[in-house]
C-alpha cells in the first residue's frame, strides 16, 4: 500500500556522505571521506576490563534505567574537565548527557526552531547540523567567513535586520569541513555582540582538544558572562565514537528545557556506555591519550599537506588546519567535485564533495578531505591519485571550453 508520511519527511534525503560512507566500507578504498578517529588508538584492553568490573560491581545499576540528565558522576567529571581545559565555570547540573552530539543538535532544533526562524551560520558549515536543523524548516543566513571567523559586521547586520534569528551556530575550532579556526579576538567580539542583542550562540566543539600547532584555542563559553552560550561536546573524537556519549553544557534554566525534550526522544542515553566512559575517565588519563592522538593526527595532516603541495595543479588551494580532522580544498570554478568523485572512486579514492556543506549557494568546486583515518603511505598514494584525476579533469574541461569557443558561430 502507499503510505502517507509526514510532510516534513520530504526535506529529508539520503545525504551524499551517507552514500559515500557505504562505498568506503570496502577496505581497499583509500577513504578521505569519513570523520573517523584512528581505531588503532582505541584502548580496547582497558575497556574490556572496565566493562567486566562495572558488571560485577554495579551491574544492576549499569543495565537499569537512569536519569534523563545523565549518569551523575559523569556529569560531574565533564563539568570538572571543561572547567580545567576551557576555564569555564560549569556545575554538574549544567551538563546534559546526549546520545552523540548529533542528538545535541537535534534537541537544539526542537528547542528553538519554528518554521521560518533564522540561523546564522558559517559558510561552509557542518552537514549533520544542516540536516538536523533543516527538519524544522529554518532560514539559513550564511555569514561571510574569513580566516579569523565570521565577519562581525555581517553578523551585526543580520541581527539588526532579521528579527527571527534564533541562534548563531558555529564550530569555532578546527571547523568541519573547512579546518578553519577563529581568532580569539573574533570570538570575544562575537560573544560581545551576541550579548548586546541577547542572542544565543550554539558553540559546537567536537575537535577543540585536537590542536597540533600552538596553543589550544579557548571556548566562547568561557568568555560568556551572560549565559548565552550553549556548547556541545563529545567523546567521539577524543575517546570512541561507538559509545555515543556526548553532552550539552549551558545554564541550568536551559538544560532543564533540553531535559524535557531528551526524555521524549529516548528517555536517557545508555547507562552502561555512560558508566564505561565514566570509569575510563576515573582510571585513565585522557590527556595522555590525547598526546598520542595529536601526535598521530599531526603526522597525518603533515603528510596530507605535503602531498597536496607536491601534487595538486596550479589554481587549486587548500587550508592548512592547526588541528582537527579535516582540510578543505577549493578548485577552479569549472571543476565539479561530484564529477571528480566519480572518477576518483574508480581509482579507489573517496572524499566528500563540498557542495553538501552549504545550506544553499552550493560551491561545487570544493571538497572536504579527512586525514585522521588513513596511515601515511595511504594518504600519499591517495593524494597522488586524486591530484592526477584533478589534472586530467582540468585538461578535459579546458579542452571543452576551447572546442566550444572554436565552434561558435562568428
Amino acid at each position, binding site marked *: 500500500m502507499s503510505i502517507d508520511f509526514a510532510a516534513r519527511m520530504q526535506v529529508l534525503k539520503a545525504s551524499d556522505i551517507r552514500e559515500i560512507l557505504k562505498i568506503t566500507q570496502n577496505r581497499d578504498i583509500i577513504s578521505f571521506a569519513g570523520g573517523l578517529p584512528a581505531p588503532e588508538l582505541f584502548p580496547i584492553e582497558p575497556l574490556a576490563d572496565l566493562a567486566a568490573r562495572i558488571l560485577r560491581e554495579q551491574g544492576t545499576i549499569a543495565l537499569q534505567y537512569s536519569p534523563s540528565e545523565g549518569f551523575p558522576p559523569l556529569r560531574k567529571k565533564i563539568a570538572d574537565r571543561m572547567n580545567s581545559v576551557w576555564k569555564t565555570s560549569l556545575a554538574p547540573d549544567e551538563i546534559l548527557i546526549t546520545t552523540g552530539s548529533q542528538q545535541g543538535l*537535534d534537541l537544539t532544533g526542537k*528547542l528553538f*526552531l519554528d518554521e521560518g526562524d533564522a540561523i546564522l551560520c558559517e559558510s561552509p558549515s557542518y552537514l549533520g547540523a544542516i540536516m538536523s536543523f533543516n527538519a524544522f524548516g529554518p532560514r539559513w543566513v550564511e555569514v561571510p567567513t574569513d580566516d579569523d571567523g565570521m565577519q562581525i559586521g555581517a553578523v551585526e547586520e543580520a541581527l539588526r535586520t532579521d528579527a527571527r534569528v534564533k541562534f548563531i551556530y558555529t564550530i569555532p575550532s578546527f571547523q568541519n569541513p573547512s579546518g578553519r579556526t577563529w581568532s580569539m579576538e573574533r570570538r570575544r567580539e562575537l560573544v560581545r555582540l551576541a550579548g548586546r542583542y541577547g542572542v544565543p550562540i550554539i558553540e559546537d566543539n567536537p575537535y577543540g582538544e585536537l590542536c597540533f600547532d600552538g596553543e589550544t584555542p579557548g571556548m566562547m563559553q568561557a568568555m560568556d558572562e551572560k549565559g548565552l552560550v550553549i556548547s556541545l561536546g563529545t567523546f567521539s573524537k577524543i575517546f570512541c565514537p561507538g559509545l555515543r556519549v556526548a553532552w550539552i553544557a549551558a545554564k541550568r534554566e536551559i538544560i532543564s528545557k533540553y531535559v524535557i525534550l531528551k526524555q521524549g*526522544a529516548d528517555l536517557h542515553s545508555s547507562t552502561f556506555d555512560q558508566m564505561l566512559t565514566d570509569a575510563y575517565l576515573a582510571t585513565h588519563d585522557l590527556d595522555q591519550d590525547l598526546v598520542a592522538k595529536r601526535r598521530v593526527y599531526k603526522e597525518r595532516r603533515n603528510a596530507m599537506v605535503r602531498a597536496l603541495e607536491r601534487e595538486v595543479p596550479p589554481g587549486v588551494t587548500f587550508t592548512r588546519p592547526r588541528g582537527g580532522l579535516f582540510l578543505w580544498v577549493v578548485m577552479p570554478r569549472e571543476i565539479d567535485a561530484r564529477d571528480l568523485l566519480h572518477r576518483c572512486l574508480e581509482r579507489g579514492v573517496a572524499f566528500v564533495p563540498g557542495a553538501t556543506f552549504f545550506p544553499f549557494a552550493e560551491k561545487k568546486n570544493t571538497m572536504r578531505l579527512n586525514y585522521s583515518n588513513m596511515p601515511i603511505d595511504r594518504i600519499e598514494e591517495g593524494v597522488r591519485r586524486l591530484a592526477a584525476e584533478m589534472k586530467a579533469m582540468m585538461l578535459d574541461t579546458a579542452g571543452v571550453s576551447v572546442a566550444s569557443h572554436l565552434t561558435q558561430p562568428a
Partner: protein
Amino acid sequence: MNIFLDKTGSSPLYRQIHNQIRDMILSGELPTGYRLPPERRLAESLGIARTTVINAYEELKSEGLVDARVGRGTVVSPLTRPIPDAEEGRSISWPHYFRDEGLRPPDPLVRNLLESASQPGVISFAIGLPSPTDLPLSLYEAASRAVLSEIGPLALLHAPTEGHMPFRETISRWLTKRGIICTPEEIIIVSGSQQGLHLSTRVFLNPGDTVVIEAPTYFGAMEAFRRAGARLLAIPADDDGMQVDILASLLRHHRPKLIYVQPSFQNPSGAVLSADRRQHLLRLAARYGIPILEDDTYAELRYEGAPLPSLKELDQAGLVMTLGTFSKILFPGLRLGWLAAPRQVIRQFALAKQIEDLHAGTPGQMVIERMIRNGDLDAHIATMRSVYRTQRDRMIAALDRHAVDGMTWHRPDGGFYVWCGLPRTVDRTRLNDRAAEERVSFLPSYPCFTDQPPVTHLRLNFSYPGIEQLEEGITRLTRAIRSSLTSREQVPERAQSATAPLV
C-alpha cells in the same frame, strides 16, 4: 486560520481567540504581513459577538503583535527584538527563543515513578521495570568480553544508522521463529522503544493529524503523540482489548494517520486483543489504508496459554509496523529496541534517526546480538517467565486474601501488571496520603486516559518488587484503601483529579 472555541470552558472566549492567534503568530504560522479576517467575519464564522473578536484583536495590538490601520485591516507585525541601546545590552530573554514545545511543563510522571521506586522502605508497584535481582549480568559480561576480544576496535566505531547488520540479521531470524517473517532490511535498531515511538511521530504525523489509541493506553506513547501535535482518538478497551467495532463506526467520520495498539498484555490493563478483533482491526486498517504501530513490548512475557499470532504475522497488506524492545526482557539501561516494518518505512525511520542520534551504541548491539545467537536470551526469557508467573500468582493470592469489598482485578496471562479497580467509595486524595504513609506506591489510572478522568484503577506492577515484598505491599495497599473509604460514593471532580499529585 483555524480557531477552536471551547464554549463550555472556564476561559473567556476573547482570551481563547487571543491566545490561539498569538501562538500562531509566534510560531510563524501567521507570517509578518498576514491579514487577519475582518472582525465581523470571524465573529460570524465562530458564532459569537463581534465585540468578543474586537477585544481579542485589541489585546493582540497592545502586545505589538498586530497593527490595525483603516483600509488595511488588522495585519501581523514583524516580530521585533528591541535594538540594544547600550554597550551592555540586556540579559537574554530565553522564552522569546524557545518553542512552545520546549516551554510546556514536563509531565513529571515518569520521573516521579522512578524516584518513588528508589525511596528506602517503599514497596513500589508503580514502575514497569524487570526484576533487578534477576538481570543476567554474567551472561552479558561473557558476551561483552567475547565481542571486545573478537571484534576489537571496530566494536567502538560508528555503526550504520539502521543498526549493526549482523544484529539485524539475528533479530530477523529470531522473529521468524516467532512467526514474524521479515528480512534484515525490514528491521531498524532504535535507541529504546521510546525513540521508536518518537521517530514514528516524526515520520508520520503532521500537527493536527489523528492517532487512534486504546483507552487506557501507555502514557509514554500518548505523550509522544501529543508533543507531535496529534489529536488522539481513544477507543475504549475491555478484557479482549480495543473494541474494534467502535473504531469501525468512528472511521466513517475520522481519517486517522496511525493506529497505535498493544495487542499483547497491554500496559496498563494487561488485556490481550482477541483473535477475532485482531482480524477485524487488520481488515479495517487495510480498507482505510491506515498503518498500524503494534507495540510488542510485553509479547514474550507470557505465563499462560498459547500465544496469539501478532498483527505483523497476520498482516497481508504490509501495513503493520512492530515495535519491540530489550528493556523488559533483558536490560532497560542499554536503550535498545527494534522496529520491523516494510522497507519504505524503514527508510524513512533511518532518515529521521540519522538526524536524531546517528545510530544506537555499537558495542551494546554487538553484545545483545551474541546473546540472541548463542541462545542466552531465549533461556533467560524462559527463566523469567517462571519467575514472573510466581510473582504474579503471589500478588493475586495476596489480593484474594486482603482485598477490600468493591476492588476488582483479573489474573493477567502475561506482562508486568495487574489492573486493579477501586471501590467507588474511595476518597482519592485520602488514598494518596494513606499510601504515602504506608510506604507503598502505584500508578493511578488517570495518566492512561486522554482526558485524565478521576482515578478508578491502580496499575500494580509485580515484576520489580521482590517476591517477599509482594504480600507485604498488598497488605499495606489494602490497608490504605480501607482507611480511605467514605460513607458515600465519590463524585468525580475532573478539575481536581487532573492536577492530583502523584505518589
